């Protein structure tokens, strides 16, 4: 999916773009680089970030507790933050600060969405949302809009890519990883994609065609947004996320509880 996205991005910029399997070529190449460690705890935390993300994704796909999923994802991000803070690189610290702020921006919205799903289905389990007869999209459209507004922050897309900002902090938290250990962080990004699109799929209930349509829509929306906007600074991001997305999710929650 990541390879496909790079092609779409290149086509939007009138370029041809890399081959579809390019992420896998990168993957194989990184495995063959000679290892360079900053220190062992740093590399260990990077790999644990990858493992924790697998756990979050597994719990979500197996249809278990949504709150648990969100906190496992938070744990994975926190491990990456710790890894970034454990080095002495300034850019790494800057990236970690920015990542912490972006977590502050999207996490409350996700939790409110999970609560809204609980109000509708009567259960925090993701399987309840997967098996819900009417798609959640029709019952809580505002929550979907709120999710669409925080997804760019979570996937580090422009205009909310302050955490990764290649031109400013050259990748931020992933700066000090190299070789095999960067591979863990790089692959964790693909997992993040799967995670986010599964969250989108939750809104379709048991309607598979609608789910695929929603995922396609989100894909096009994210890429169009990424290519057409410039980066905002972290204050604007935080203000926008907590002002607009959070209040949308809150209004959605109020409407759901009143109905």
């Amino acid at each position: 999916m990541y390879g496909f996205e790079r092609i779409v991005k290149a086509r939007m910029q009138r370029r041809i773009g890399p081959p579809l399997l390019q992420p896998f070529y990168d993957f194989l190449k990184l495995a063959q680089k000679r290892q360079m460690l900053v220190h062992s705890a740093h590399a260990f935390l990077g790999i644990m970030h990858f493992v924790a993300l697998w756990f979050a994704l597994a719990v979500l796909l197996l249809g278990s507790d949504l709150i648990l999923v969100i906190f496992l994802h938070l744990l994975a991000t926190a491990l990456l933050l710790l890894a970034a803070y454990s080095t002495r690189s300034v850019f790494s610290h800057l990236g970690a600060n920015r990542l912490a702020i972006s977590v502050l921006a999207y996490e409350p919205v996700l939790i409110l969405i999970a609560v809204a799903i609980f109000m509708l289905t009567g259960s925090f389990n993701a399987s309840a949302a997967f098996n819900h007869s009417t798609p959640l999209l029709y019952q809580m459209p505002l929550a979907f809009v709120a999710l669409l507004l925080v997804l760019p922050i979570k996937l580090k897309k422009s205009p909310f890519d302050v955490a990764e900002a290649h031109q400013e902090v050259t990748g931020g938290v992933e700066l000090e990883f190299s070789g095999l250990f960067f591979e863990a962080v790089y692959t964790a990004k693909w997992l993040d994609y799967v995670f986010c699109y599964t969250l989108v799929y939750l809104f379709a209930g048991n309607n598979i065609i609608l789910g695929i349509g929603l995922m396609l829509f989100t894909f096009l929306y994210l890429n169009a947004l990424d290519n057409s906007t410039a980066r905002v600074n972290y204050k604007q991001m935080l203000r926008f996320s907590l002002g607009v997305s959070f209040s949308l999710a809150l209004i959605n929650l109020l409407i759901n509880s009143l109905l």
Partner: protein
Amino acid sequence: MNLSSYRKKSPWILHYNAGGCNGCDIEILACLGPKYDIERFGMINTGNPKQSDILLVTGPVTKRSRERLVEIYAQMPEPKVVIACGACASTGGVFRGMYNCEGGIDQYIPVDVYVCGCGTRPEQIIDGVVQALAILEQKSKDMESSVRLNKQAVTENEQLNRRHVAAEIAPIA
């Protein structure tokens, strides 16, 4: 499936300007643009030495930038390839012999490919990078082969005698 054929399909480029006039830098950026689009070959301009394979240097090495150049080179994990991009980086160009710079980057770090021109054409840069890919593949093969097997056995005559070496050092009067 031959995994080793993938190693030259994703070269990540680190671009460093060692005090040049930005002429070559603009041509490098033109390579990334829609007309030449080197991302077709899987190349990314990373900006991070720890994750890149090819070091693309422009400009004569000014005395301010030479320590950074060596430090960046040291931070790149092997296998790595260095391209001297443009006349200045190869030989010093028009700045050769001036008080504030050195003649070319090969005085400080080993260079694998020299790309000529002032400033270089994007086609030449792409050609240089493609040549560098062959060297990169060779280097990564060398990393895997055993060094010890190629080494000749030391004969008695070639060994340095410690006493002969010490005899040449005159005692301090």
